[in-house]
Every structure is written in structure tokens, then in C-alpha cells.
């Protein structure tokens, strides 16, 4: 209880014995569990659909699809809606939100591992580059680095890589800072309740001093902001930035 406060990364659960042992960490296992959850949720929401929505779950499914379609159409334009970017955005948002929220049930949140976010932002980087190629051709893509004057070439290259990196760092930093602050709060409350209840005389003080009574309820208030609000906001922002960067890459 009076131990040191430490922050650990994802633990390695087991190793796949090929190529000299590929490490499988908590991040990968939790991500796969959450992916299975999302697939199950999709199947549950969409099975037995009718032309006119009669069940609650079909109404919820239609509401989600309409919202995402509206968001993609508004921020990226009708072309991207036809090509099929809405499912991508919806899946990133669902995965991001559920991964961050999974930290609340005590498991290691995959989004508090930088590798997850770097993977997602790599996907965004590939899509941005693809759309720049598609819009201007190879020549137009190279020309884009010499805009507005050729002297700015190094800065343009840096900003090309800074976009996905800052997206990954932003998401990671927000979720990780929430985890650290909540951990510090629980640790401080445990120590505080030990210090206070140990002052009680006799056996009562010894028993109550070892139970972190102050941990009941108080962290929940902070959890509303650091876990629920922050997780949903970061999922929304990651998707909005993805849409904006891809949309503006196609316009150039």
C-alpha cells in the first residue's frame, strides 16, 4: 500500500515460436478481444433487418450509419462517401473509443500503448499519400514539396511526417495522461486513508488502516472526465483529423 508509484507499459504475455520468438503483448490480445466485441456488436445490431425499422437495435444501427455518413459527406465531400470511406472512419472511431474505455474495467487500454496509435497513423499517412498521388499524379506530388518556394523543401518533408506523428502522440498522450493521473489519485487516496485510519486506537485502527476506504467513490468523479469524456473526445478528434487531412490531400 505504501509502495512506490510506478507506470508500466504493456506486459508480454507469450511468444510465438517462429522467427526467433515474436512477442505478443497485452496490447495485441486486448485489441483482438475488442475487435471481436465490435464484430459481435455489429452482428447483434444488424441481424433480422427489415425495410421499415421496427426493432430498437435496427433504429440504433441506422442512427449510427446515418451519423457517420453525414459526417464523412460534410467533411470530405460526396466523392469519398461513394468510394467508401465511411466504414473506415466508423471502424477507427469504434475501435478507438472502445479501446480507451476498456481501461475503465481494469485491463490495459491498447490506446495507452504508442505502438497502436503509430499503426493507425501509419494507415492515415498511407491514405494521405495515396490521395495526393491520385489528385495530382506523381509529378504533382513531387511538385507539392516545392510549394510555395523551393527553399521550403526540408520543412515540407518534416511536416509530411509530423502530421501522422502528432496525431499518434496526441491520442497516446491524452489517454496515457489520464491513466497516470487516475493511478496517482488512487495511490494518494490509499496512502491518505492509511494515514488517517491508522490514528484510530487499538485493533480497529490496524484493521481499518489496511483497507483503502477513501478509494470508494472519489475516483469515480474524476473518471468521468479522464476516462469517459477524454476517450470519446479523442476518438472523435482522431476521426475528424483523419477526414480533414485526407480531404485536403485530395483537393491539392
Amino acid at each position, binding site marked *: 500500500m505504501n509502495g512506490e508509484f510506478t507506470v508500466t*507499459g504493456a506486459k508480454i504475455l507469450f511468444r510465438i515460436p517462429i522467427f526467433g520468438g515474436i512477442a505478443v503483448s497485452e496490447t495485441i490480445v486486448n485489441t483482438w478481444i475488442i475487435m471481436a466485441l465490435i464484430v459481435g456488436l455489429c452482428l447483434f445490431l444488424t441481424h433480422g433487418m427489415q425495410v421499415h425499422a421496427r426493432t430498437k437495435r435496427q433504429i440504433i444501427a441506422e442512427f449510427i450509419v446515418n451519423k457517420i455518413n453525414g459526417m464523412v459527406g460534410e467533411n470530405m465531400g460526396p466523392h469519398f462517401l461513394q468510394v467508401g470511406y465511411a466504414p473506415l472512419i466508423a471502424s477507427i472511431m469504434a475501435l478507438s473509443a472502445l479501446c480507451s474505455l476498456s481501461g475503465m474495467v481494469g485491463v490495459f487500454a491498447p490506446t495507452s500503448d504508442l505502438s497502436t496509435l503509430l499503426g493507425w497513423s501509419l494507415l492515415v499517412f498511407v491514405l494521405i499519400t495515396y490521395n495526393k498521388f491520385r489528385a495530382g499524379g506523381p509529378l504533382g506530388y513531387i511538385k507539392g514539396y516545392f510549394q510555395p518556394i523551393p527553399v521550403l523543401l526540408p520543412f515540407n518533408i518534416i511536416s509530411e511526417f509530423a502530421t501522422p506523428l502528432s496525431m499518434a*502522440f*496526441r491520442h497516446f498522450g*491524452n489517454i496515457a495522461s489520464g491513466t497516470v493521473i487516475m493511478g496517482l489519485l488512487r495511490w494518494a487516496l490509499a496512502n491518505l486513508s492509511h494515514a488517517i485510519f491508522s490514528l484510530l486506537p487499538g485493533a480497529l485502527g490496524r484493521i481499518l488502516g489496511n483497507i483503502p476506504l477513501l478509494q470508494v467513490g472519489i475516483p469515480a468523479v474524476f473518471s468521468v472526465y479522464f476516462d469517459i469524456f477524454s476517450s470519446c473526445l*479523442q476518438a*472523435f*478528434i482522431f476521426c475528424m483529423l483523419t477526414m480533414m487531412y485526407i480531404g485536403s490531400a485530395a483537393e491539392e
Partner: protein
Amino acid sequence: MNEQLWTKAIVMGSSAIGAGLAMIAGIGPGIGEGYAVGKACEAIGRQPECKGTVQSTMLLGCAVAETTGIYGFIVALLLMFANPFIGKLN
């Protein structure tokens, strides 16, 4: 032995000070976000019917403004829990 201990103590202490200094980066986003939210409140006060748009734009802007603070936080986190300098001692 004693010298090694001293070196480690100095490295750890300097890292803690560095982590504290890195978190000074939190001042900038604080001021910036406060300014953005204040302006958003003004905008909603002037045009309450635009509340939804103003709110989502403000949240997006706040998240982007936060980036520099997050960089500082990541540096502090590295210095505190994944210190690259202690490994170089031996």
C-alpha cells in the same frame, strides 16, 4: 561503488528536474484553450442557434492546441518511467 551510486543519484535527480521543467509546456495550451473557450462562449452568446457547430469546432481546435503540451508530457513521462540515461551508466 560509492562513485557509481553518486552518478546514479545525480542522473536520477537531474531527470526528475528535467521532467518538471518539461511540464512547464502545460502553460501554453492552458492559456490557448482558455482563450478559445472564452471566444466560443462569446460566439454562442451572440448566436445561440450555432451552438452545435461552435462547440465541435472549439473541441477540435482545443485538441490541436493541446499538442505542444502533450509533447512536453511525453518527454516528462520518458524521463520519469523509461529513463534513457540510466541505461547508459553501466
